[in-house]
């Protein structure tokens, strides 16, 4: 905690004090400057009390000087262990106001001067030496004044504190103007501005901006060397750094180090999450911020270079550009072998490449010298890896220990802002929630997700996960309401294995349910489940929500709403990135055609790869969003069917079908849900249309027809292995495996087709077209003889045809498929 804490931020600006003092005319300059210097030294050696004493002396010289006030506030803040950010923020804003006031006054004065001087110069148009030199001194004074009253330092500190409080948007809004007008800011501070910008942009998932800042830094600070060169120069420099590390350098490293964990963690999300998802960006947040260093102690160029490399790694990693990341990591490690960030990023790289064992090794190497906060991050990263290895309980245990690590590190001393800023428990608890969900613990998972909402409330994925929790809970029969009828339906649901989830929605179309007088009561009562319990107090929300289908619907609505809001923005960002890419390419072309020197070429290539990375990230995001939106719509439709609201279900399903690039499994689901909704609305004819389109599409697929048996086998084997994951509806699963072809084959494969037939049987039967119904029922039964619904459909049709004998035979033949709810329904019907 110590090293990290103290190191990771140092807003104060003793240098400013020095200069402030120096600018005082009325006081003996040398003493003041000496005092300021001493104060700065004390500050850097962390004896804040001594530093304060001197600062107070300085204040005696001129108690109006805002810089001294500013420095006093900062030193006090540090002396108190960074526990009272509010106080510092207040002083900062006062200082800022005061500075602005003084600056205005100075400006007025300057105006007066300049008008005087202009009049003077007009007088002697010949431009004689005396006068113009007077003017010059005047303006120099003014510049000095302006520098004194510069508000950039208090602003930067302000942004930094906001960042530490994890209020990224607020920090960004303060920082953005500084960055836009970065030229006049002195170099050390400008560097901090850039670094802070980078951290915030990476933390809040704005790779475009991050790349922009990174490029600016490379240009402005001139440390960019072509990678090869860097590696050759590196060793010498690197060897010197560890020993000579200035405090600031230290700072940077810690910062960056933490930053990297974040990154790792972020990835872990990606990895961690079971689906295609945007969660990748979820976790990221880099803590960090560079302190404002004293002017006398600029950050050594090597460290800047190191940082630049590390940031590039992070960008490349999130763009999945593994090759480039590898290169950058190598250069970074060349600069400093021991840099924790670099090592962690390396672990992340291995993780991305699927070398889990290597990644684990790397992490365990690091964990020995990690402080508690870091330890938590590392444990969480290990958890992600184990999640990938499908060691669910172990992963869950790692996440739990990670959370505990944060909790313990907290208890030892009062919470400081730094500790708060490094706390990643919200991200980790999201991870933990995901893990619980995949362990089949939807209720606990939803609690975790709701807790994580404090951070991720604007990520659609979080809401989708919450909805998923509800659906899983429904399928597991964990929802509170247990009327008899409900439990009947539940039995069917649970009884259906992995793939039969697809059947389920169509399932209510099946004869039994349609015919009993007690029909389709799936869940009106579900609404009641939602009675919120007022017990626990949450950070964000007044109360926790209990799982219910209504809650699922709300979450899904929120998610789709967020998609809509993000969409415009995402499209914009992607377009921007693409344009930038094109531009860079052009530039590259022209440059190479001109036959530019080797080094500019290298630079151009570098920028190009960065821009390309950004473009890749944006594009990837768009795809994810599209896929997730489909999932959300399908699930929405499903839930609305569940609460007996077919009108809305129909609307969602139609919207799903309207999506461009609607993937096959979703098409199927969309048609199925739409058909179900239409049946409930007593419009079987239209339902039939939906189902027939579906049928045509599936049979049109040659692979399916050919590989039927094969896929059937696959199915069965798949069933067992998936057993732990399922209990979710078809859609969920699809999202999970969208990537691999097998799953697609699965959903559009035999069993999906069988359920499709069953649904068709039901519709035909309702319309009285018993011949067709009979034919299809037979087909379904031969296709998946183990499917109880298929059997029941066949029996139902036999009964309708008044062939009790054959119905009985069928029932006997398939006796082993015990279908509790349905047989009850049947007897009623009879």
């Amino acid at each position, binding site marked *: 905690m110590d090293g990290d804490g103290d190191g990771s931020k140092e807003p104060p600006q003793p240098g400013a004090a020095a200069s402030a003092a120096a600018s005082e005319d009325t006081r003996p300059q040398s003493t003041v400057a000496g005092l300021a210097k001493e104060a700065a030294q004390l500050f850097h050696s962390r004896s804040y009390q001594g530093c304060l004493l001197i600062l107070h002396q300085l204040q005696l010289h001129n108690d109006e000087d805002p810089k001294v006030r500013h420095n006093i506030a900062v030193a006090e803040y540090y002396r108190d262990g960074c526990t009272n950010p509010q106080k510092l923020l207040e002083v900062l804003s006062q200082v800022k106001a005061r500075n602005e006031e003084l600056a205005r006054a100075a400006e007025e004065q300057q105006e007066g001067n300049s008008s005087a001087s202009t009049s003077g110069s007009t007088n002697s148009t010949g431009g004689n030496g005396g006068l113009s030199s007077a003017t010059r001194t005047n303006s120099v004074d003014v510049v000095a004044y302006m520098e004194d009253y510069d508000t950039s330092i208090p602003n930067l500190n302000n942004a930094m504190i906001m960042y530490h409080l994890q*209020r*990224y948007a607020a920090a960004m809004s303060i920082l953005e103007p500084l960055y836009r007008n970065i030229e006049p800011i002195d170099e050390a501070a400008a560097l901090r501005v850039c670094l802070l910008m980078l951290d915030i942009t990476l933390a809040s998932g704005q790779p475009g901006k991050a790349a922009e800042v990174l490029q600016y830094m490379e240009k402005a600070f001139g440390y960019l060397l072509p990678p090869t060169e860097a590696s050759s120069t590196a060793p010498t420099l690197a060897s010197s750094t560890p020993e000579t590390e200035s405090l600031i350098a230290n700072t940077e490293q810690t910062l960056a180090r933490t930053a990297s964990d974040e990154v790792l963690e972020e990835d872990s999300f990606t990895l961690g999450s079971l689906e295609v998802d945007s969660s990748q960006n979820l976790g990221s947040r880099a803590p960090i911020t560079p302190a404002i260093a004293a002017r006398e102690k600029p950050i050594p160029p090597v460290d800047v270079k190191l940082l630049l490399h590390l940031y590039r790694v992070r960008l490349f990693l999130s763009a999945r550009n593994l090759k480039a990341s590898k290169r950058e990591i190598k250069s970074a490690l060349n600069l400093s072998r021991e840099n924790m960030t670099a090592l962690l990023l390396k672990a992340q790289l291995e993780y991305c490449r699927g070398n889990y064992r290597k990644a684990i090794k790397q992490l365990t190497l690091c964990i020995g010298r990690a402080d508690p906060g870091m330890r938590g991050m590392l444990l969480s990263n290990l958890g992600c890896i184990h999640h990938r290895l499908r060691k669910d309980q172990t992963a869950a245990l790692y996440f739990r220990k990670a959370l505990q690590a944060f909790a313990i590190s907290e208890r030892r001393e009062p919470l400081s802002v730094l500790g708060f800023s490094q706390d990643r428990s919200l991200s980790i608890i999201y991870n933990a929630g995901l893990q619980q969900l995949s362990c089949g613990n939807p209720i606990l998972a939803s609690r975790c997700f709701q807790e994580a909402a404090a951070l991720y409330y604007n990520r659609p994925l979080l809401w989708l996960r919450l909805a998923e929790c509800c659906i899983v809970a429904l399928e597991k029969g964990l929802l509170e309401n247990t009327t008899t009828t409900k439990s009947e339906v539940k039995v069917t649901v649970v009884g259906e294995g992995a793939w039969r989830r697809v059947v389920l929605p169509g399932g209510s179309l099946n004869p039994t349910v349609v015919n009993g007088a007690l029909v389709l009561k799936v869940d009106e009562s579900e609404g009641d489940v939602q009675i919120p319990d007022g017990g626990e107090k949450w950070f964000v929300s007044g109360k926790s929500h209990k799982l219910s289908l209504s809650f699922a619907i709300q979450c899904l609505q929120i998610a789709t709403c967020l998609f809509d809001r993000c969409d415009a923005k995402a499209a914009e960002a992607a377009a921007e990135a693409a344009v930038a890419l094109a531009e860079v390419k052009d530039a590259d072309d022209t440059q190479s055609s001109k036959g530019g020197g080797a080094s500019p070429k290298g630079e151009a290539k570098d920028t190009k790869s960065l821009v390309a990375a950004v473009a890749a990230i944006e594009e990837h995001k768009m795809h994810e969003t599209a896929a997730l939106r489909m999932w959300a719509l399908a699930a929405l439709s499903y839930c609305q069917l569940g609460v007996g*609201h077919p009108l809305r279900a129909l609307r969602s399903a139609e919207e799903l079908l309207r999506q461009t690039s609607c993937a096959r499994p979703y098409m199927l689901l969309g048609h199925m849900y739409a058909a179900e909704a239409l049946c409930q609305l007593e419009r079987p004819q239209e339902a039939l249309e939906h189902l027939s389109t579906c049928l045509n599409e599936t049979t049109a697929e040659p692979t399916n027809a050919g590989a039927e048996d094969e896929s059937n086998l696959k199915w069965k084997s798949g069933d067992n292995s998936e057993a732990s994951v399922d209990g979710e509806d078809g859609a969920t699963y699809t999202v999970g495996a969208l990537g691999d072809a097998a799953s697609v084959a699965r959903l559009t494969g035999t069993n999906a087709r069988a359920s499709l037939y069953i649904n068709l049987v039901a519709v035909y039967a309702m319309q009285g077209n018993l011949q067709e119904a009979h034919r299809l029922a037979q087909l379904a039964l031969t296709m998946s003889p183990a499917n109880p619904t298929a059997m029941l459909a066949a029996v139902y049709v036999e009964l309708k045809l008044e062939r009790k004998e054959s119905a009985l035979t069928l029932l006997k033949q398939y006796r082993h498929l015990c279908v509790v709810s349905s047989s009850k329904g049947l007897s009623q019907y009879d």
Partner: protein
Amino acid sequence: MLPCGSPLPAQIGLQVSNLSKDNYKSVAEELYELSSDGPDGSIILLRNCLEQVNLAENDQNLQVKFDLLTLVIRNLIHQPNLGTILCEALRFLPSVSEEFLANLCRALKLSLPEQIALGLALADAEDYSQRQQGLAFFETKVKELCEDPVPDLSEDLVERILWGLYSSEALLKLRSSFLRSLPALQPFAVDSLTMIPFFKDVNKEVNTLREFDYVTISESLLSDTILMDMEHATDVVSLLEELGFDCTHSVEHCKEILSQGGPLLEGDVARILGTVARTAKGLEEVQNIHGPFYNTLCNGEAITSKLSSWHVDILLGAINQLNPSLNWSLIVSSLDYEGFFLPDENAFTLFMTMYKLGCEDPFPIDAICSHVWKNDEGQLSFLRHAISAAPEVFSFAHSTRKLMETEEGNLKSPNHAWLSLDLLEIL
């Protein structure tokens, strides 16, 4: 949907039209029963009520019917699928307009929130003009609400209203005024999780909602119980299986792993034994995750050797130390869990070894023979190996009910298996 011949519509129709003051109570109850079964019943009921009220202007039972309609609507308003029910019920009415809704509400004396809910429900209609009418009605009512806030609006309704307001850009102004008056309407809504997206400017930048000051005061970063719940949710049995043989490196280590979850109970032990027996011949894909686990989460010397099988004596030692008061016959009957299966004779032998290490009593034959398990396959696998086992491994000799000794000649088996009536019965 209902089949044509269903008696439900007829029954409901009859009851509604015959409604009078005298039978109000009983009819209302019956109708409630009928309609509580699903949307169809509700739709028919609502439709019938509306028709009756519309038609029978001179009916002396009009008031009673109004009462019934009010009752029905009030019931429905809290259902999540009000939209479908209302729209379906109104589908065949010729003129559903804003005015119609207003009249209806006036006649039934519905409160403002209820009126809003009705308007919103109508906005779900498929028919475009109906939808517009519903929206318009909704808009006027929300305006009224903003001007004259009703306290204690239900949170559910607040959410529905917000979604309604977000559905169309035209309602932008109304949206902001509603959000402004919201704290007066429902003070708690602001804190609600699902409300966050409405209140926060949602873009890609994030402000965490967790307040530093709040955390400092409460001294914890997370809800306090959640870690504990996670601990209880830890399934040590799977953990053991995932980590592999090395868990049984030493009693201390084994204890450490087994105590990661809640207290170790009989059910857990049963699953541990089952798992160990099942995986005795080798675990699939040992990923070597135990080493890092041991290094990072456990305190102790590094393990040098790698085990290639379970050390059951260590395992049982750990179990007995963790919970010395285990009831072993309860453990045996807890073997009936999903997934229990003994693949071969070795597994069975190992299982029995573990049993004997755990407890000295003779094996409780009752527990496996008294009834058919839910996991009958698992039970069969156990019995099969038990019957063919050598007597020193397993014996039915102490079975409570046995065939007479005299018949031993015919049914000779070393471990008295075929003498046990319990066994025969269960088979």
